[in-house]
């Protein structure tokens, strides 16, 4: 399977502040990749580079083997783009905007758009600017579905959506993508529900990539162990196998890619007294927080 997106040795700075160095991203055709990170971790920077709105300090991004700074119209037609906040031409109503976009894409599919619009309960003359955030997200999604692109780039689509709309958006999208073998690159800082959507996860923290792998693999190899220290004052040394350690009084949360055995061995060999040792099942959100830390 070939890569639809390929970013090689991406390095970018804002002035002297490093965003990241030598970042490599690959998105396989037909896969759904979620780029997760806290605010300021470089999600928007990456999206901007992917869309050709930012020249990286060095390195390059290719989409369908074309440099993203000089995409040909033909390739641009294959990419659906959702701007953060579902930005659209808000001075249009849903009829005008459909008419506008239809002119650009020969394979324009009106039906999925109008199917979504029917559920919206908006007036035909109502401008998009006067719609709710959720309604706007449906308009933006409908336009992308009608464009029927091969690659969808969605920048923080969950922003401002209430849970119902978010769930609706995700389910609609996943079903659509899997049925037609679409590739999706999406970012989000809300992790809830993302498990339902993505195949691969790319977790970024300031200046670095914390994890880049299939969600399933990530969720099975990344583990959380909780226990209580007998001596609350004991400070645990952060060994190499420990990815993250959170301590509140004598309550310990320990995150690792290694097995339960390694953890128990470590506790035994260092003579650390503990009780109530248990493995905790995590959601993707738990794992994200475990990996990136609460702060």
């Amino acid at each position: 399977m070939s890569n639809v997106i390929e970013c090689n040795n991406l390095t970018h700075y804002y002035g002297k502040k490093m965003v990241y160095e030598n970042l490599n991203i690959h998105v396989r055709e037909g896969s759904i990749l979620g780029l997760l990170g806290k605010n300021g971790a470089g999600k928007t920077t990456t999206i901007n580079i992917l869309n050709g709105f930012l020249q990286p300090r060095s390195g390059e991004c290719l989409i369908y083997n074309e440099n993203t700074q000089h995409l040909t119209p033909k390739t641009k037609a294959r990419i659906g783009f959702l701007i953060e906040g579902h930005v659209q031409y808000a001075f249009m109503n849903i009829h005008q905007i459909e008419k506008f976009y239809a002119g650009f894409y020969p394979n324009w599919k009106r039906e999925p758009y109008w199917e979504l619009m029917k559920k919206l309960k908006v007036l035909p003359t109502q401008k998009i600017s006067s719609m709710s955030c959720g309604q706007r997200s449906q308009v933006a999604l409908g336009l992308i579905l009608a464009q029927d692109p091969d690659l969808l780039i969605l920048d923080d689509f969950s922003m401002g959506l209430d849970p119902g709309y978010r769930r609706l958006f995700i389910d609609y999208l996943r079903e659509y993508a899997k049925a037609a073998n679409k590739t999706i690159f999406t970012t989000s800082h809300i992790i809830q529900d993302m498990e339902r959507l993505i195949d691969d996860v790319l977790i970024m923290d300031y200046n670095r990539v914390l994890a880049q792998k299939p969600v399933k693999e990530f969720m099975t190899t990344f583990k959380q162990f909780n226990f209580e220290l007998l001596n609350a004052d004991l400070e645990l040394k952060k060994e190499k196998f420990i990815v993250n350690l959170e301590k509140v009084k004598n309550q310990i949360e320990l995150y690792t890619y290694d097995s339960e055995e390694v953890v128990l061995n470590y506790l035994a060999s260092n003579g650390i007294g503990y009780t109530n040792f248990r493995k905790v099942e995590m959601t993707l959100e738990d794992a994200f927080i475990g990996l990136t830390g609460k702060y």
Partner: protein
Amino acid sequence: MWKSILYKEWLKLRWIILISTALGIMAVGSLFLNVQHDFLFMGAMTYWYNTLFLGVQYFHLLKYVPLVIGIAIGVAQYFPETVNKRIKLSFHLPINENKILLLMMLCGTTTLLVSFGSMFLLFWGLSAHFFPQEIVYGAIVSVTPWFLSGFVIYFFISLIVMEPVWKYWILYGLIGYAFIGLYLEPSTTGGYEPVVLKFALLTVLLSLSSLFSAYRFRKGEM
């Protein structure tokens, strides 16, 4: 595809075309209502005399009208593109980015041409009705740079609105202020004769200005 772009520009501009053209025509009309009034009270001969020998400019009220219309159309067309950086949507359309910008510029320029053209023709026609060719010629030479200034400010607005770094808005604004000032330099009637064509050429060249700041936007200057 160009039809769709035209459609979008039309949605943004349709009201402003009507309003600005109507206001422009009213401005021209009011000039000549004054002329007619003064003809009645002081006599045509005196009015001609004052125009020819005393430097009276019956059209001086027209000076800033094209400038105001240029600003209105520039803002109406480019401001909605930059709210929430919506211009990204345009650059993502399957057309070359510069082609889109030039199409947008052509739409705005056509709007200005329609608005200014109708004003200009009305001005010319009514001038020729009231005045001999010498006065008409001087008046046309005098108002042409004012109309050109409307185009120049429109191009400068497209430049400034697309610019991603706010500090440069001020710098571009200063350059625009200094440059547009040239078109509005006070002068005797007909005094612009040697420079009208040069101004026209510079104005045509400036039509490309939005390409520059839009390119900076695409490159992610900040």
